[in-house]
């Protein structure tokens, strides 16, 4: 409108103040990008080896995952999320089929989890994608109830969420199960569940958790991780039965502590360089940040995460409809739980569970799923006026 002459087709768009591209949350996008780039560096530092020739393969693969994740997130962001609401049933059913299929001989068992499709180049972990699917589905269902959550509707929601949770638990993947479990009450709370219902739910949860812990349904190593966290016992002589977990926790704390205030610099951490921390590129990537960048760098990482969470929370608040709010809150719950649990277990204030640190840990499925989740939030945020 400011220009004279021929009107270009874009001009109409430019005038459309509600157009989604005008409301992209660049801060959120930038923060996620920063963390993902840091993640590439950290995966490289944790896997390149102590001396030349350095290994680039895992870092290169993670770069591919980030690119794939960005594309997937972009696709998710482009489709108006109202369509997703319409397709919620199909998304839900599709996720359930994947979760069932992975339990069949089609899936493969890696590190004790029957939770992977071996696609040759990389292994797809459907439970990661199912998290996003479940957030969309129960968000849609809760939005259907328009904030009127009585006991019956809560039970319906719990059953809808319980099926994927049960299927993931059947894989033997306790960590991912806990992420699912964290999402549900948060969404219920924001969707209007009464505090007393949630209190009953909490009590029931504690009873179930205790039962699971004592029933023998869990593997010994899973129990060990929990008891190690309680005792913080790093003495190999007394933590014989907890050798894996105790050693891992001990090395993680030492590595983070070694970083000190300013860190040892990129590739300067001897613990990271010499591979003292098992699974450092995945579940214990936080220690690589801790050692190399110290309190200042790690604090900045947590601040970036905080910024991401803040922007998601803000999007939830500004969302045009309940569905948008609930989906954002689901994503928020998923990310907060993963960040807190993962960095918490790295620092010894949470029990060890196999949960990756979003955008930082090496891993294809989780990276792509997290980008898709961010895509959802960007989608909702950018269409708040549409």
């Amino acid at each position, binding site marked *: 409108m400011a220009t004279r002459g021929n009107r270009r087709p874009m001009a109409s768009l430019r005038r459309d103040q509600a157009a989604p591209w005008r409301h992209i949350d660049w801060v959120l996008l930038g923060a996620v990008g920063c963390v993902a780039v840091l993640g590439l560096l950290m995966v490289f530092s944790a896997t390149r080896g102590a001396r030349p020739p350095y290994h680039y393969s895992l870092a290169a693969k993670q770069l591919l995952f980030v690119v794939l994740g960005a594309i997937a997130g972009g696709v998710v962001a482009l489709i108006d999320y109202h369509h997703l609401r319409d397709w919620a049933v199909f998304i839900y059913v599709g996720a359930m089929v994947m979760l069932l299929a992975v339990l069949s001989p089609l899936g493969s068992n890696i590190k004790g989890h029957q939770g992977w499709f071996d696609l040759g180049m990389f292994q797809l972990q459907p439970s990661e994608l199912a998290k996003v699917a479940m957030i969309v589905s129960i968000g849609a269902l809760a939005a259907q109830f328009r*904030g009127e959550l009585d006991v019956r509707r809560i039970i319906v929601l719990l059953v809808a969420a319980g099926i994927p949770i049960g299927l993931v638990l059947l894989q033997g993947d306790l960590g991912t199960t806990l992420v699912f479990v964290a999402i549900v009450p948060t969404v219920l709370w*924001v969707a209007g569940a009464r505090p007393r219902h949630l209190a009953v739910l909490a009590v029931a949860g504690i009873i179930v958790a205790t039962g699971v812990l004592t029933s023998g349904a869990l593997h010994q190593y899973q129990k060990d991780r929990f008891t190690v966290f309680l005792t913080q016992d790093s003495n190999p002589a007394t933590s014989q039965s907890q050798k894996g977990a105790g050693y891992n926790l001990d090395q993680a704390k030492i590595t983070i*502590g*070694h*970083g000190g205030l300013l860190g040892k610099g990129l590739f300067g951490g001897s613990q990271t*360089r*010499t591979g003292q921390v098992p699974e450092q590129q995945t579940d214990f990537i936080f220690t690589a940040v801790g050692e190399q960048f110290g309190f200042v760098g790690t604090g900045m990482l*947590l601040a970036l995460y905080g910024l991401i969470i803040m922007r998601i929370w803000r999007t939830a608040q500004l969302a045009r409809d309940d569905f948008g709010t609930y989906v954002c809150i689901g994503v928020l719950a998923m990310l907060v739980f993963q960040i807190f649990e993962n960095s918490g277990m790295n620092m010894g204030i949470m029990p060890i569970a196999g949960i990756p640190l979003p955008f930082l840990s090496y891993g294809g499925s989780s990276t792509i799923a997290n980008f898709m989740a961010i895509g959802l939030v960007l989608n909702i945020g950018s269409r708040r006026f549409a």
Partner: protein
Amino acid sequence: MSTETSPRVRLGVVAIVCISLFAALFARLWYLQVMNAPAYSQVAVNRSTRVLTVAPPRGRILDRNGNVLVDNTPTKVVALDRQALAKVKDADAVVSRLAGLLNQYQHPKKPFTLANIKEKLKNNRVGPYEPVPLAEGIDDNLLVFLTEHSSEFPGVMAETQLLRQYHYGPLAAQLLGYVGPISDAQWAAAKHSKLPYQKDDQVGRAGVEQSFEKYLRGTPGRKVVEVDPTGRILRTVSVTDPVPGDDVYLSININAQALAEKALADQLAAARQRPATLGYPPAPAGGTVLMQPKTGQVLALASNPTYDPKLFVPAISNADWKTINDPAVHFPGLNRVVSQVYSPGSTFKLVTALAGLKAGVITPQTPVDDPGTYQVIGCTAPCVTFHDAAGDRTGTFALPEAISASSDVYFYKVGDQLWNARSRVGETPIQDMAAAFGFGKQTGIELPGEAAGRVPTPESEKKLAAVIGNKQYSGWYSGDSVNLAIGQGDLDVTPLQLANAYSQLVNGGTRYKPTLLYKVTKAFEPTKVVYKPAPKVVGHIDIPPAWQAALLAGFDGATKPGGTAAGVFDSIDMTKFDVAGKTGTAQTTQERFDNAWFVGYAPAQNPQWVASTIVEQAGFGAVNAAPVVAQLFQPLAATGTFPTVAPTIPWLAPPTATTLPPSSTTTTTIPGGVPAGSIPDTTVFGQGPTTTTPSGTTGETTTSGPNATGGPN
């Protein structure tokens, strides 16, 4: 929407929960990375790094003129890297192949097998990151083979190891000592020092190798490496090169040392010509020491029988170790000059004379009648009659003559009179004088295992009698003083103490600590002196010049016509100076020959050298010990310098049971057929091919050697 709580509040609650969780993370991060960082950092460094030590080359040992006595020679060692071997699938096959090769090329006494190599690999004295040595002195052909087939021998490595090299063969063996694996006690003692030892370190275990360890050792290098959790070395973080040990210059003059050892060996061989008495062959062993009376520096220190220190390189066999400590061959490892004690016999008259002079029971001029026998003052029958040694001159002697002729009666009387005057001079005038000359305690020379000797007193005899339960002789009698006066009885001294006592007399009364250390310098840098000790005074007595003159006149007379040692010294060319000295013949047990002593010094008028010699169970000192000192001083007296020796002494074969008495006493051959005990021909010490020829041929005259101009000092 619920009426109970607005959506705004519900989202607010979510925000608060999130903020709380992040606050918890920050708090924990602060705790780990700020509050506890030092502690965790320490653990991290311990876990991810290891410090390897690199042994420094051991310092050299040289004589005072810079002739290298001991240094290091590289040898190839086949060693196994346990870390690398652990990664090999068929490690047993590799070890078996290696065992076969080692047996084929090295011909070990005990063949290598898979089992005994595996046993060696358990050696916990070698650090986990150090290769375990299997065999030394590797054949070049084997090295080439292993290099060419290195892929078939993962974990097998050829290392260069430094071994001690003794340039003068068996010369000064007991003095130099040897190196060996550190003992657990030594390791533990140095555990918390600035430079702790590794358990597989080699240290000096005897002689100056032990006493000068702190100079010779050097500073180990440090290599800091990073390791993964399984202990595999990933990379090197830092390297500090080892600093070689310092060069230790001994006060020894290797030419004098060679001369002393030769003179001693010659004399032992000569004495062994005599038939054995009651199954005890004569002259099994002896020792001689040459020192500077005005500094305390020892120029030569010989002990015989001896051994070849090469036996200790790289490690001594059990059989050889047994031989070195075998009583049947008279303990070749024993340093008789510092670690063995003997009754000094007449050489002790020096002390008796001074005690008598000091107490006033004699003057230098007092004449004493010596009829050949002596009975103690106031003795009532039955009396013990003390005799002069058989064949001694009798007559009336003043002090100088009494010393020259070694009149026992003269000194019996001095001892007896001193005991009778005990109310005036105390019970121990002789013992006090002995103590003033350093007898009865260690001299402090830098050699481990030095004996203190013993000077008997009424007090000590009483204690001894109580210990052995002798009620009959539980005190001190005139006879004890009479015996002590001529250096008999329970008096014990080392040859070094005796030499040092004579040094004290001839230098005017100052007793120096005998020392073997001339200087310490940086490795291979003779001008960079690390330490050069000054003569250390450990005692002094004032000797009135008249008394000293009388004693010196007596010692001078001993080598002149009428003196006890005249027979030996009258044939010596004393162009440059006279030699003076004192004979001693100390009784041992009834069945054996007496111990032969001689202490001499030269020049008689201005003594620069003092030598003392013991020849065990050989007979008269004049015949059996004096020739050693005569032979030692002869080249000095004739030319003013010691003949130069080259670093190969074929005539000093290391002893074995068969070359020692009693079975054979003549294997010590003297090139040129020089009669034992006579003046040595300098050709003997020259390095010539014919010097290795057995007796009967003439040695080629040559004075070439590393130090052809080696001076006397």
